């Protein structure tokens, strides 16, 4: 009995030790676990989707033509883009009837064109388009300056509107084609990147010589706190909406005021007054395409704070605008609206609507 007891103890104890030693090793120190990136929103890249759809053969050709001049890579599955994707009909409607024409265009032009259809770094679904007036002031993939600290790109302007989603002045035709590296929205025409700044558009149009003279007159002596306007209108990183009165509009104003209907009249007016009148024609940091205006009547503060008043019919395609002092006599006067005779002249730094009367803030 005693022996059994002894053996039982010794054997079982040794067994226990043996079991302990044979037991699996201690747990390894856990390594940090990487956070998995959020799941891709689609299974195919933008490149793959485009390649698979013959309606996009022009765009595919344009992308191929642009090659390494593109600042984005639609085949990069890890990237994130919002692309306004023109199908073949959009190319044709925009005056590019064939792939051969694309291949005949300079690479830089094709690259600029394609780059301008992309908003990098975000995935803007149709529901994410904002309704704020006039639109979202976004950056395209068309790089204008890569100087530090922050690169500057050609701006692009998506907007949700009562009539649907728009980009610049184009409607979105088919929304939310999801790719693993972004989202695509269809557009009926090409988004042409502007090539001129507002100052260049004005200088190149004989109808705006009075306006240019007025800008120069105002810049000769702006009111305290007022900046010279020409440098702003020449600055590619700026952003304006300009209601540009024609020479005739100025002459009409001079006639009503009993002044000589001549460009020289401008230089006879006080500089601060001229500056104020020109500045009243500008919306700062807003690029309001015709389609961005609310249907019916609305107002929005101009560069000098005094609101511009609008009367818009989206259906009829009419845009009218006035200032508080645009009145038809006799006193106290009937409100008078200047009519936009040409709209959506797109500049690098803004949009220009030609109007047939000078807007008067007071």
């Amino acid at each position, binding site marked *: 009995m005693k022996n059994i007891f*002894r053996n039982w*103890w*010794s054997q079982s*104890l*040794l067994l*226990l*030790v043996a079991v*302990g*030693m044979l*037991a699996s*090793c*201690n*747990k*390894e*120190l*856990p*390594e*940090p*676990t*990487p*956070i*998995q*990136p959020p799941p891709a929103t689609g299974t195919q890249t933008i490149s793959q989707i485009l390649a698979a759809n013959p309606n996009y053969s022009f765009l595919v050709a344009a992308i191929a033509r642009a090659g390494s001049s593109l*600042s*984005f*890579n639609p085949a*990069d599955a*890890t*990237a*994130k*883009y919002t692309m306004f994707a023109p199908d073949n009909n959009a190319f044709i409607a925009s005056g590019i009837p064939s792939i051969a024409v694309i291949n005949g265009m300079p690479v830089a032009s094709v690259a600029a064109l394609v780059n301008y259809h*992309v908003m*990098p*770094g*975000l995935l*803007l679904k149709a529901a*994410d388009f904002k309704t704020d007036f006039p639109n*979202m*002031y*976004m*950056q395209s*993939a068309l790089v204008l300056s890569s100087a*530090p*600290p*922050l*690169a*500057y*790109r050609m*701006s692009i302007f998506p907007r949700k509107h009562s009539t649907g989603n728009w980009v610049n002045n184009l409607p979105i035709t088919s929304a939310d084609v999801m790719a693993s590296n972004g989202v695509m929205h269809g557009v009926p025409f090409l988004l042409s990147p502007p090539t001129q700044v507002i100052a260049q558009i004005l200088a190149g149009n004989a109808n705006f010589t009075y306006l240019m003279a007025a800008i120069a007159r105002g810049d000769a002596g702006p009111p305290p706190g007022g900046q010279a306007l020409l440098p702003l209108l020449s600055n590619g*990183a700026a*952003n304006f909406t300009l209601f540009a009165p024609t020479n005739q509009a100025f002459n009409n104003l001079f006639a009503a005021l009993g002044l000589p209907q001549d460009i020289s009249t401008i230089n006879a007016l006080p500089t601060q007054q001229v500056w104020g009148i020109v500045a009243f024609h500008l919306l700062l*940091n807003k690029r309001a395409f015709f389609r961005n205006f609310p249907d019916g009547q609305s107002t929005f503060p101009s560069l000098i704070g005094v609101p511009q008043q609008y009367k818009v019919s989206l259906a009829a395609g009419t845009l009218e605008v006035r200032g508080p002092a645009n009145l038809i006599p006799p006193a106290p006067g009937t409100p008078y609206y200047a009519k936009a005779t040409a709209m959506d002249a797109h500049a690098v730094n803004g949009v220009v609507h030609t109007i047939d009367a000078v807007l008067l803030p007071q």
Partner: protein
Amino acid sequence: MLHLVAVLILANVLTIAANAQPVTLKGTVTDATTKVPVSAASVVVKGSTTGTYTDEAGNFTITTSQPLPITLEISAVNYQNQSVVVSAASGNISITLEQTVALGQEVVVSATRTPARILESPVSIERVGTTAIRGAAAANYYDMINNLKGVDVVTSSLTFKTPATRGFNGSGNTRVNQIMDGMDNQAPGLNFSVGSIIGLTELDVDNFELLQGASSALYGPGGMNGTILINGKSPFKYPGLSFQIKTGMMHFNDKGRDVSPYYNWAVRWGQKVSDKFAFKIGAELVQAKDWLARDYRNYLRQSSTTGKIVPGTRETDPNYDGANVYGDEASTNMRSILDIIGGNAFFASDFIKTLPTNIPVSRTGYTENEMINPNTYTFKLTGALHYKLAKNVEAILAANWGTGNSVYTGSQRYSLKDFKIGQYKLDIVGKNWYVRGYTTQENSGNSSNLTFSAIKLNEAWKSNTAWFTEYTLGYLNAKLAGKNEMDAHNIARGIADVGRPAAGSQQFKDLMKQVTSKPIPVGGQFVDRSDLYMAEGQYSFEQIKFADIMVGGNWKQYVLNSQGTLFADKAGEPITINEVGAYIQVAKSFLNEKLRLSASGRYDKNENFEGRFTPRVTALYKVAKSHNLRFSYQTAYRFPSTQQQWIDLDVVTGRLLGENIALWEKYNLINNAPYNPLDLSERITYVKTKPESVTSFELGYKSVIKSKLMVDVYGYVGEYQNFLSRRDAIQFASGVPAPNAPYSAYSVVVNAPGKVKTYGWGASFDYLLPKGFTAGLNLSSDILKDVPEGFRANFNAPKLRTNVSVGNTGFGKKKLVGFNLVWKWQDGFFYESDFIQDDLPAFHNVDASINIKSPRIRSLIKIGANNLLNSYYRNAVANPMVGGLYYVSFAYNVL
């Protein structure tokens, strides 16, 4: 009953008187194997009450009135009993004793402050004696505590280990008293016990005892979860030169370090100059490359002291904050910088609006491996002068001084560099009394907080403003180039980190030196020159026969001196805290010595807190010979530690504040009370904290069955209340909470509401096998319950742990070979601390050693391994991974 005792005593006196024909016998007792004198052996004349003990040289003199021949019965711990018939009074009687392993015969002191056989201790106690230390399966005697029943250890460095029993462990635990040769070795400013850094050298340790559970009643505030007493060797008893050379190898297959040596050299010299005067000096050096904490998992901080491990790496989480990565605690929401950029660059403004409102980003940190010099060392220097003022009165003047590099874990990881601590005491010990005065002088040297140092190093290289701005612009540019979120972050980090000092480069070293030489909050250094002064005394009333009565008292003063870097003191204006205490213990035996009852009580008063009385009642009932039942009721408590009283430390995520009202006033927290960040409708007002206390009941049974099997089982319940804890508080500059309103975060000390219950049990079985083999098994369990919701107890104890051991003190032809093998396993649990909280998985570990004695040169060669299987484990989250340490040692003059 009393009458009966009196009659018996009288009868004895009469017997002796009647046979008064004294014979004086002289003799020497030596070890049969090693030929070494056996001291403290009991020599008793058979059939009488006459007896004596051998002195340090094994000599005894006994005078008896019995007629020759007589029989002397000699017994000593760890030796077989021996009987010798003496028929002549002339000459020297030479007696040899055979070594054996006896169970339950050790004498312990700490359980009752008076010597008693361990078998008859009224409370749970473990003892480790010289023989066990010599043959231990441990590279260092301090490591042996690890394998005692019911003990948990937190290893925050090779040289920094913190034991506790019955839960509530953590690095720098303040709930266990560690008393080394009568001196409490808690660092007065940093609050951790410095047991493994200073104090006795391995050669100078005679024994140590561990009291599990609450023990304030005898040892004063603090011992809520145990008391460890380490006792040195008297130079009278252990003279001569001894030394030990231990060399090892470690870091095999270590992911953080290459294989490197371990050195532990110790020397001791004791000299008995005369019968009255003896002295000893000793030194010990431990040097190695430290274990490495390399938990790089992502820690999401929810407040200054709470958080959780979440997925994420440096590459996949811009706000990554690695557990053992420092400097990445500095974090900001990039949104504020983005908004500034958007306000200047209109063209980017709308794009910036499409980005998330909350983009937290952390700076790039450095790993612990990169921050700390891997060399760890401790150097101890000890010395003592012993002088016998009278026959039973000895004066001891002792000094223990130590310095070293180590790492410990508080609310962050701290690099202790050239840390120095000295303890100096004067002891006068009588037969039944002592008086003692000592002081602990702490000097934190060039120690620093790793988190702070890294944050300041980063800032010294590149300011946070510059770094975060570069990062944000880099991020924005990358985003606008079409990069996805994480790629944009990584590009941004690459840009902001251009030219970042590489760990180990000269630039890094220079910056490190710069920041660690400036105290917090400018740099990462903490300055601590705090001191403790203590005077105490104890007296046992021998003349009172009615019962054994003992009284004692102490006075203690803390002088907190951190020059404002840790505490709310100022340079030249340290904070003092005074504490006084007194205790009494009455013990009495009943029922023919079958039942022994004792009652103790202790009163302590800290100048900042109301006085506390702690009672203890114990009972020991001898069911039969060697079968003892014990019961105890005791309370224990602790005053808030010096840090809990006076800390004033900015820890980036908030400010840690002590409980003293002066600190609340300093930050206007009285007039503008802070809010609970989780519930802004709750305002946190100042409430004076109370000492934390525990009430514990324990029932135990200890027995030696047939001299072969020793069984010790216990069960206990404890109830903690007024738990000292921290909670987060945020103070709004305006006094009213509002979204995005500026606020300051604090972590304040409070008594947690409600009571927390613990219970547990332990059982150990030690079995003597033939030929000197022993086998042991112990199991223990500690469980916490009734934890209020949201309450973090830092319980840190497994539901089950076990040690299985086998050993032999001497086998082979001449019994010169011994070995020990211990397997330890403990269950996993959720580990909590101010530094980190996460699951700690179960782990196991094998320690083993084999030794060969050479009696001729009184030496011992030992080959051993800590963590024999080299299976890396850690016993606390975000603390080092401990692997195998394989060593060989030669110890001279230790037998």
